């Protein structure tokens, strides 16, 4: 998919692009995760109707003796507020995510609500970050992010990219593009929901007439 289809009925004009940053989730020197992060960012930047940037958490200035609003970085907060969704590129460290990534993500909360997130796992071993992806899901859910069901697994990372970042396994082009297709669909759908579907859906709001009856029936059935 090279172009983003934007339905006019959703009132999302072409001059209102989707903002989907890519977050590189490790600060370690010599990190191989920078290569898949740049690769995913490059594939995403090629999508029409999408604006993206690579956010390196090593550049987010946060003290480690506080949390949330106390330490929030205004620039990172503003980027998350503007974002419609995000890609998280996360290496697996001892079966889980880097602590500093969690620290950065925890510095915001409201900024994430009802936005889409896709996870790219990275590992030195064969499992491609499958365990870090599973361990990240409940965190993202609590932050208010909506995760997609398609992931990318960069296992045995030193065999996927060389030291210069050159992709050695072309199959990852299609895998990443498939992942981005799913993410962009979720980003568009959630933006429509944020802007058009009220949380008190029994009231009905402009543009939701088509689903109002269904929601009303569902709520009625639950009573």
């Amino acid at each position, binding site marked *: 998919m090279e172009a983003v289809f934007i339905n006019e009925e959703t*009132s999302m004009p072409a001059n*209102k692009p989707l903002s989907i940053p890519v977050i590189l989730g490790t600060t370690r020197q010599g990190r191989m995760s920078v290569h898949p992060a740049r690769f995913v960012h490059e594939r995403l930047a090629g999508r029409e109707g999408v604006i993206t940037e690579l956010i390196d958490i090593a550049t987010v200035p946060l003290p480690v003796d506080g*949390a*949330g*609003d*106390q330490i929030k970085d205004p620039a990172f907060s503003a980027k998350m*507020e*503007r974002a*419609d969704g995000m890609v998280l590129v996360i290496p697996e460290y001892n079966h889980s995510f880097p602590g500093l990534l969690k620290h950065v993500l925890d510095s915001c*909360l*409201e*900024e994430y*609500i*009802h936005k889409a997130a896709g996870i790219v796992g990275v590992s030195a071993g064969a499992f491609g970050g499958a365990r870090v992806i599973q361990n990240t899901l409940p965190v993202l859910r609590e932050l*208010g992010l909506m995760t997609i069901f398609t992931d990318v697994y960069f296992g045995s990372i030193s065999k996927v990219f060389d030291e210069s970042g050159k992709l050695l396994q072309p199959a990852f082009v299609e895998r990443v593009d498939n992942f981005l297709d799913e993410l962009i669909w979720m980003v568009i759908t959630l*933006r429509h*929901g*944020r*802007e*058009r*579907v*009220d*949380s*008190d859906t029994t*009231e009905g*709001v402009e*543009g939701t007439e088509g689903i109002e009856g269904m929601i009303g029936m569902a709520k009625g059935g639950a009573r």
Partner: protein
Amino acid sequence: MSPLAKTKSYVQMRCPVCGNLMNRHAVKVIEPRSAKEASRVNTSLGGVVTEAHSCPACGKNAWRAG
């Protein structure tokens, strides 16, 4: 009454960027993060009620206490 339900006194949020009426798309109960928020805890829900709003015109996202 559920905090999700609109009341007659409910006032839609105005977009701080373009002035349009915003859509309230979420009501999330969060842990208090400060003394100020701790004073606003809804004891029946067990946390602070926060509303998330988005502007249908310009896409601005914003939030306020519920």
